[in-house]
């Protein structure tokens, strides 16, 4: 899932300055799980903004709303007219949601209420960890299912650097050394010998370095187009 954290309130307050009607728009999928931008968080944020406005004597109307998902049109198409009725949409969705709504909303600005952090998992309640970098060229079969791109601070491909200490990364004792984990895991699986092979320089064009990406599934896109024609 996509993990995010709410922006500091002063930054959000600064963003809404000069707007009269603001909608805090939550997304009930990924960012709701990480308690950053779901319907509940949108409601709390809207309340905080109203309280702050009252305290500062600022005339501003703040409402909240949430839909199941901001990355597929069918979820917000139902409420798009309502959303268009505001001066500002403060989106509590991830960056994907902010961008996508911007493309469809027309002449209303969409600002981010959260910082989108990473693709991660929830090992236990309240804890979120980054596990994938979305690099577009997966190597997990070579590294025991542990990603060196996302989880090594230097994205090293051929083994640990000299900074590993007692299984921790040189950047922080709170970060596990991915290569320590990879070696231990592959020992366990009996596949350590695989790590002797040199991984050549990567083709990063599949990652962000290749420019924005687009994937088209021809058969589905064509069917859809035919449907519309009918």
């Amino acid at each position, binding site marked *: 899932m996509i993990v995010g954290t709410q922006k500091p309130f002063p930054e959000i307050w600064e963003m809404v300055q000069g707007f009269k009607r603001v909608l805090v728009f939550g997304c009930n999928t990924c960012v709701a799980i990480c308690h950053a931008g779901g319907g509940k968080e949108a409601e709390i944020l809207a309340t905080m903004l109203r309280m702050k406005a009252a305290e500062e004597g600022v005339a501003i109307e703040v409402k909240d709303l949430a839909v199941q998902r901001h990355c597929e049109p069918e979820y917000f198409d139902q409420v798009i007219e309502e959303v268009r009725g505001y001066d500002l949409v403060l989106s509590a969705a991830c960056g994907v949601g902010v961008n996508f709504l911007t493309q469809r909303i027309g002449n209303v600005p969409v600002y981010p209420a959260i910082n989108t952090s990473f693709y991660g998992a929830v090992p236990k309640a309240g804890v979120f960890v980054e596990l994938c970098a979305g690099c577009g060229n997966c190597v997990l079969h070579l590294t025991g299912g542990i990603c060196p791109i996302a989880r090594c601070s*230097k994205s090293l491909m051929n083994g640990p650097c000299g900074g590993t200490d007692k299984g921790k990364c040189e950047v922080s004792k709170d970060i596990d050394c991915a290569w320590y984990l990879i070696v231990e895991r592959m020992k366990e699986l009996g596949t350590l010998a695989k790590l002797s092979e040199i991984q050549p320089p990567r083709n990063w064009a599949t990652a962000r370095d290749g420019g924005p990406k687009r994937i088209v599934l021809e058969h589905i896109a064509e069917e859809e187009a035919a449907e519309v024609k009918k």
Partner: protein
Amino acid sequence: MTTMKSGSNLERVIASGQPAVTGELGPPMSADPAEVVHKAHVLKGFCDAANITDCQTAIVRISSVAAAVIAQREGLEPVMQMTCRDRNRIAMQADLLGAAALGVKNCLCIAGDHQSFGKAGKLNGHPGAKNVYDVDTTQLVGILKKMRDEGLQQGGDKLQVAPKFHIGASWTPLGDPLDFRPVNLKKKVDAGADFIQTQGIYDVELFRSQMKKAADLGCFERTAMLAGIIVPKSAMMLKYMDSSVSGITVPPALIARMAKAKEAAGDDKKKMKELQEAEGIKIAIELIKQVLDIPGVKGVHVMAIEWESALEPIVKGAGLYPRPTFADA
């Protein structure tokens, strides 16, 4: 005589079978070359080549390419370090061609300290910098080899004239995960490393056992191992390295020995420093003698950090002076 890959002095010393000595020169946070010139003069004659560090601890300093050329002009052969932290493969290869064009013949490939290291003590560094790591150390070694031996860039384009580097890589033999470190070394050797410099060694016995494992993997038929010696300055420094520097363990007996030297000075601060430095030089000399005795070790890389003048008494004390010279050089 074997055919030289680069013809560097360091390569010639190693090929001659005599123990090689490399030193280290850290460029300053300054646009003034004077400090590089000064350090080059202090080191010259006491090592076969000196590493020119590449923005060590992620602090902006005179670039290793430029400082290497300054050192070379002063008669000190440089081992230009190149980290994977700050450049992508385009910038790396461009700098390698530039350095070769300016006469640099040794290059040491390293991952580089993470940019978060820059913020330490009184320094701000650039912890918010974007790191690159387009390629890692092993891959960079391979790029250098491909450029030198095939005359090709990593992408496959032909070079009109290939850069003839003596290719080095770093190794942390006593780092975690310990049993993978020899494999890690073998990958760098397979990629084309002609010589290896290690992280500082204090635990000689553990290093010996790691060297044995690396030897069993066939590492030393193709590469020359230069064992790293960090010259200790004080008991505090030894304790700090033991507890906080990755891949370094200091036997308690060594720390105790240094503490004893400190105690002998009583309350005299100046004497405290002198006695500990003298002990540090002695320790370095003993370590050098011990590591040179280990099969596969072809020399030492002496790191007297911000204490370049220590190299002379160490090299002399270890019986490694004068350094070899070659009639046609």
